[in-house]
C-alpha cells in the first residue's frame, strides 16, 4: 500500500499538486482521472520515486519513503511514461526482456530461466507471442502500447504505474486491456492508470481518484453516479478544460 499524506509539489513557483491525501492499495486497479494539466503525470512521477514531493509524505506501507535508500522505490514501482519512444530496431521480445534489467552486475548478466518465464508470460498475457520477433517500428500504435504493457508486467514489481498507456488503443483492444489489468490487479499488483476513458473506468476500476488543478476532488469506488459526485468546483474546471 502506498499512502500519500498532504503531499504537495511546487515547480518553479507553480503549484502542481497541493495537499494530496489518498491511498493506493495493492490488489487493485486505481484509475487516476482529471483534465489535462491536473497533475496526474506529476503524481505518478512522485509515486515512482522519480520526483520528490515539496512537502507532505509518501509512505510505502508504514515506512516514510524519504527514509528509504536511493533507488529503493524503483525496485517496488515500475512506471511506463506517457511519451516513450522505444528504439525502433528492437524486437518486441528484446524490449520486454529489458524489463528484466538489473543494474547490479549488468555488465555480465544474462537472462535466467526465471527471467525467461516472466518475459514469456507477459508476452502471452498481452497476446504478443505471434509478434515477439517483429521489430517495434513495424507495429501499429496499439501494438506498441501493448508491448510497453508487457514490458511493465515483466518487471514483476509490486506496483505498476501507467501514464495514458491505453488511451491510444481502439475500443475493443482497450477494453480487453482493462480486463487484463483488472485480472493482474486481482492477483495482487497495485496498478495506477491515468486515462480519459470514463466509461471503462466506471466498468473496471476498483478505485477512482479525480484530480483537478492539483487537488483531489473525488476518491472512492466508481459507483454508477461517481462522475456526478465530483465536487462542483472540480467538475466546472473539468468541463472548462
Amino acid at each position: 500500500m502506498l499512502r500519500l499524506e498532504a503531499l504537495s509539489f511546487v515547480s518553479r513557483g507553480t503549484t502542481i499538486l497541493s495537499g494530496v491525501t489518498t491511498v493506493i492499495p495493492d490488489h487493485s486497479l486505481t484509475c487516476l482521472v482529471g483534465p489535462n494539466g491536473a497533475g496526474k503525470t506529476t503524481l505518478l512521477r512522485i509515486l515512482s520515486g522519480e520526483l520528490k514531493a515539496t512537502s507532505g509524505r509518501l509512505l510505502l506501507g508504514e515506512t516514510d519513503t524519504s527514509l528509504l535508500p536511493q533507488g529503493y522505490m524503483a525496485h517496488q514501482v515500475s512506471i511506463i511514461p506517457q511519451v516513450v519512444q522505444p528504439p525502433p530496431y528492437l524486437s518486441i521480445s528484446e524490449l520486454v526482456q529489458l524489463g528484466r534489467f538489473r543494474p547490479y552486475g549488468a555488465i555480465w548478466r544474462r537472462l535466467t530461466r526465471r527471467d525467461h518465464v516472466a518475459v514469456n508470460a507477459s508476452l502471452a498475457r498481452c497476446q504478443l507471442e505471434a509478434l515477439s520477433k517483429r521489430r517495434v517500428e513495424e507495429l501499429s500504435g496499439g501494438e506498441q502500447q501493448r508491448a510497453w504493457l508487457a514490458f511493465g508486467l515483466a518487471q514483476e514489481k509490486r506496483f505498476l504505474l501507467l501514464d495514458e498507456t491505453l488511451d491510444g488503443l481502439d475500443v475493443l483492444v482497450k477494453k480487453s486491456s482493462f480486463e487484463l489489468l483488472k485480472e493482474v490487479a486481482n492477483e495482487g499488483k497495485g496498478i495506477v492508470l491515468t486515462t480519459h476513458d470514463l466509461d471503462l473506468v466506471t466498468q473496471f476500476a476498483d478505485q477512482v481518484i479525480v484530480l483537478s488543478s492539483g487537488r483531489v476532488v473525488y476518491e472512492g469506488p466508481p459507483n454508477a453516479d461517481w462522475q456526478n459526485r465530483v465536487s462542483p468546483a472540480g467538475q466546472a474546471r473539468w468541463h472548462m478544460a
Partner: protein
Amino acid sequence: MRRTSLVMGALTLMLAVGVLMGLAMGPVKLDVHQLLSAIVSSDYHTAHAIVWDLRLPRVAAALLVGACLGVAGCLLQSSTRNPLGDPQLFGLGGGAAVVQALSIAGLIQIGTWGLFSLSVAASLVGAGVVLVFASRQGISPARLALIGVSISALAAAAATGILAEARIFSAQPLNFIGGSFANLGWQDVLPALPFLAVGLTLAATVVGNLNAMSLGDRVAANLGAEPGRTRAASIAAAGILGGVAVAVAGLVGFVGLLVPHLARLLVGHDFRKVLVVSIPLGAAVTLFADQAARLLFMPSEVPAGLVTALLGAPLMIYVARRVL
C-alpha cells in the same frame, strides 16, 4: 553468445592477416622467412630496422586509433540514443585538432606527454558541450549532430588557420587534417596506452547500463540504470578515446560512425557485445584502410582518413538504410 565468439574469432584472424601485411609489404618486400628473421634477430640490420622502427609502430598506431574510435562511437551512439554518434561528428576531435595544429605550428612546445594530455583535455571540453546538449530532454539526434558538426567545422577552420598563419605547407598538416599514420614512431604510440586504459576502464563501469539507456531516461532511471551518470561516464570515456585518436593520427573520419553500426549488423543490439566487438572491428577497419592508403599508390601514399571516407561513406549509406 556463440555468434559473438565466431565474430571475434574471425576478426582476430583478419587482424593477424592485416598485421602481417603491414609488416611484410611496402617498398621493401619481405617474404615470410625474411620477416621472421627480421623480427627475432638484429643480424639483418636493415630489415630489422624497417620492421621494428617503421612498420610495427605504424601498425600499432592503426590498431590503437581504430579501437579508440570504434569504442568512442559505440559509447556516443548508445548513451545519447543517436545513430549519428561519432567523435568527429560530435565535435570531440575538434579541440584536440586545434591543440595538434598549435603544436605542428610550433606555437606550443610541451613534449609528447604534454601534447597527449592537452589533446585529451581539449577533447573532454568538446565532450562536456555534447553532454550538456545531450542531457536536454527531447533534443533530436539530427540537432545534436548539427551542433557537433558545427563545432568540428569551427575547429577545423581554426586548425587550418593556425597552420596557414605559421606558413607550414609540408605534408605534415595534410596528413593531420586527412588523418594519417605515415611516419609514426613508437614515441607517437606509447603515450596513448595509459589514456586508452583509462578510457576503456571508464567505459566498463557503465557498459552494462547502455542497453537500458535505449528506452529513454525516465524508463532507464526506473530500471535503476542511472542515466545521468551513465551518459556522463560514456561521453567522458568517448572524449578521452577520441582525443587520443586525434593526438596519434589526426582526424580519421567515419570509423567511429561506421564501426558500431557494422558491429550491430554482426552481433545484434546488445551494446555490451557491440562495444566489445567494436574494439577489434575498429582496429581491423583502420588497419586495412591504412594498408590501402600506403600500398595502392606506392611509392607515394594518401592519408588513411581518405580511404576510411572512401570506404565508409557508401557503406554508411547502406547501414543507414538498414538501421536508422
